[in-house]
């Protein structure tokens, strides 16, 4: 389908902008607070919260990516609900959009490591591409196709703003319309400082404007110590190229997350119509397995068995205010997350359970034939041997992770870290 030149230039420019922002923009590590948004970003901001663009009329980007929760879920569910009547559960937990613009485009690094990309399996190569998908996903905003989205857009009051940026020509081609909407959203996510404030207590500490408590420091030390937490290996805690630590290296890892029976896609009986029944063919026990890079939502790497089970390393910024963790939302508190890392192989029966609560095989959210791709060689994984961290040390890591929440005000430190799990962790640390 032929695109009109002007629109494609604009889209390309927007894509470039998003990619620039996504490629580790080293020139603007911390954004100026009063930067005005470009007209495209303003349009994107409007689209971001516009529920009228969904079939249900009740869902926009902001429905799942809630600003007050670091632009991730606020509904406490492992996976969000969506679809035409807001009753269809999704397949994966909502990732945070904060700091997402630093993600590079998906590629394989020189040593073959998959890196970058958007969605938890990297199937969208830039923000604009990712932003388009929820509009036409049947269990999300549920538009049948781009034409329907375009029709809805053309009934919106800010259409003039939209055409002022993209021209009226884009409206003639629904694909271009949708692409332009994606570009606008990407511009918004890249430009608006609200997506990358770097205002956590840890940031203040790095700038010398705050001191960490002994427990927080101890947690940081355990986080970075390669003979203990070794979290630093993937959740990079040092600044890179002048950008404050993003706590991810944007690579993928298969870590054998336990199967979450709370999400409908994993239910043994029936499952979900839109969750591909790939399990039996792969020799697994269950009908559906979400295997990340090798499918089923992503299709281009289906033959790469070594990548099955690998999901993107997410940023740990604002991790304390997220309501669930990992791609399937299997854990809802950080202590479980860290404890699972430490005792995954020393006490697998604690984590890998069947739907009825009995003990399942280890790594039960992956067909067994892909177990060889699971990371077992790095600390804190420790097959067969003693856990590398004690319970107290696990708690100290949680205490440290609580310093990564944005919004630290040096003048009012008591208002910080009031999430339940943080208060709990700090209380446990001070014993």
């Amino acid at each position, binding site marked *: 389908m032929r695109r009109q030149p002007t629109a494609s230039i604009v889209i390309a420019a927007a894509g470039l902008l998003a990619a620039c922002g996504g490629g580790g923009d080293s020139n603007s590590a911390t954004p100026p607070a009063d930067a005005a948004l470009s007209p495209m970003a303003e349009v994107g901001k409007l689209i971001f919260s516009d529920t009228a663009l969904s079939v249900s009329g009740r869902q926009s980007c902001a429905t799942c990516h809630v600003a007050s929760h670091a632009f991730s879920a606020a509904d406490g569910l492992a996976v969000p609900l969506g679809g035409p009547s807001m009753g269809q559960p999704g397949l994966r937990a909502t990732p945070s959009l904060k700091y997402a613009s630093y993600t590079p485009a998906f590629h394989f690094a020189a040593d073959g490591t998959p890196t970058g990309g958007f969605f938890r399996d990297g199937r969208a190569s830039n923000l604009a591409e990712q932003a388009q998908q929820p509009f036409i996903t049947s269990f999300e905003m549920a538009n049948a196709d781009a034409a329907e989205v375009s029709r809805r857009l053309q009934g919106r009051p800010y259409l003039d703003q939209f055409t002022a940026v993209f021209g009226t020509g884009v409206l003639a081609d629904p694909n271009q319309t949708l692409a332009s909407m994606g570009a606008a959203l990407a511009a918004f996510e890249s430009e608006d400082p609200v997506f990358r404030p770097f205002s956590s207590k840890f940031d203040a500490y*790095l700038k010398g404007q705050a001191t960490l408590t002994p427990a927080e*420091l101890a947690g940081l030390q355990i986080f970075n110590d390669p003979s203990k937490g070794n979290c630093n290996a993937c959740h990079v805690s*040092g600044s890179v190229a002048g950008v404050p630590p993003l706590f991810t290296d944007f690579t993928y890892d298969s870590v054998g997350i336990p199967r979450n029976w709370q999400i409908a896609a994993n239910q043994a009986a029936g499952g979900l119509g839109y969750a591909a029944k790939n399990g039996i063919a792969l020799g697994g026990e269950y009908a559906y397995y979400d295997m990340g890079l090798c499918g089923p939502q992503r299709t281009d790497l289906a033959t790469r068995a070594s990548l099955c089970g690998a999901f993107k390393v997410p940023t740990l910024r604002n991790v304390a205010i997220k309501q669930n963790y990992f791609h399937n939302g299997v854990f809802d508190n950080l202590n479980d997350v860290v404890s699972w890392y430490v005792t995954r192989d020393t006490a697998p029966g604690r984590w890998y359970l069947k739907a009825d609560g009995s003990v399942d095989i280890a790594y039960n959210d992956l067909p067994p034939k892909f177990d060889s791709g699971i990371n077992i060689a790095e600390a804190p994984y420790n097959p067969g041997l003693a856990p590398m961290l004690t319970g107290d040390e696990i708690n100290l890591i949680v205490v440290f992770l609580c310093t990564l929440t944005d919004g630290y005000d040096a003048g009012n430190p008591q208002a910080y870290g009031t999430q339940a799990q943080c208060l709990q962790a700090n209380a446990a640390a001070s014993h």
Partner: protein
Amino acid sequence: MNRFALHPVARAAALVCAAGSAVAAIPAFAAEPQGSNAAVIRKLENQNETLARTLAEVQQQLQAMKQQLDDMKRQGSSVAEQQKAQGQQVEQAVAQQQRMKTEVAAATQAASQASQQAAVQAARSDVWNRFSLWGYGEVYYLRPTHRSEQTNLDLARAVFGIGYQFDDKTRFNSEYEVEHAVSSADDPGEFEVEQFYVDRKINDAVSGRAGLFLIPAGLLNENHEPTNFYGVQRNFVETLIIPSTWREGGLSVYGTTDSGFDWNVGLTTGMDLSKWDFAPEAPLYNTAQQLINNGVAPLQATHQELALADARRLAQYASLNWRGVPGLTLGGTYFTGGAVPAQPDIGSQRTRLWETHARWQPGRWDLSALYARGSISNTGAANARFPGTANPMPSKFDGWFVQAAYNLWQRDGYRLAPFARWERYDMGAGYEGIAPGFPTTPTGPVPSSTSPTTFDYFAVPRDHVATLGANFYLNPNVVLKFDFQKFRTNTDFTRVDLGLGLQF
């Protein structure tokens, strides 16, 4: 021939004169009275007969003269012919002369060409004379006594050097090195240019250098060939603290005084501290060999080796050695320079190294000692960016050694020299910006990258090492080495080593 010709002519002329006088005598006779007519007639007849005879003679003579003239003509023509022949011969001779001249000219030209060619050949062989080729190499057999599965046999380095002498004052030197035998992206080896510089004699007292050259620091950096040091691998102080083989790019000026002072000052590239690995996931070295090879020490990890080296921040050094007494060397070096900072916005950082050394070779002994100390400024700001990581950047590092070797036995080219060395290195003598209570080296075991059930430890970055061994020279250029090294702190590094070193 002419005399002969004259003769008949003269005779003929005489005859004619005689005939003429005879005829002239006749009228005189006619004037006498008629007395006796018969007598007169008889007299006249007699005279007639005489005249007839004379005439006949004259005719004969004329005939003879004619013949002689003919002869002469013939001779003359033969003379002419001879002359012609002579002329021809002369022509031939001239022609021959010309030919000879041409031949001589050709020969001369050939000779001159030959001599020119010879000169060119000589010049080319002179070119070959201006070339020099040298090199050295080392093979190590290293066996940690407590971890013998890490035993290693390595062609540690194969180095060749090419030099060219442009003229009396200007010389080019270069050295190229292949480490660990196979150099490629997937292999452990490396190919590098170790030296590449022009050396120019400025005057009798002073010379200068430009390019990539060795920093004159320590006892070993400039004389790092395997035949020049004791022990299989180079000592730790002069590998970790002074990063032998330490080379930088830039300019230097040096000279020697009559009283035995060698001085050397230079302006070179500095260190790049952004190459420092603050947060390694796995231990940076698990054996003494890896400690030396993996480039983990402060200056080892950050020197630029003129590979797209940052040159905005330059370094300077000054070195002084005194060799006034044969067998005694005393000296020191100070190196200081701006460095590329570890992180872009922590401000500027500076690296410094100073060292002092002594070597004394009385008789059969070879005694040496060295102390080196380095520092990096503003590491606190860098370390604060990586709190709690496994490998913070030190602000101070130092080391020293004392060594004694003895020429036990020497004959023809053979030489056996046992030695002993006691040394200490400390790659983390001081740190800044470490939060209180944080260790600077992780203490726990780390799963090995090779297998999840084996564990490595981060080695302590300081140790005392005792080395005992011997160098056995087959000739001054080939040495077999043996040593035993005992580590006091990182006891797993204790090892037995054998080595082969050669130089040409």
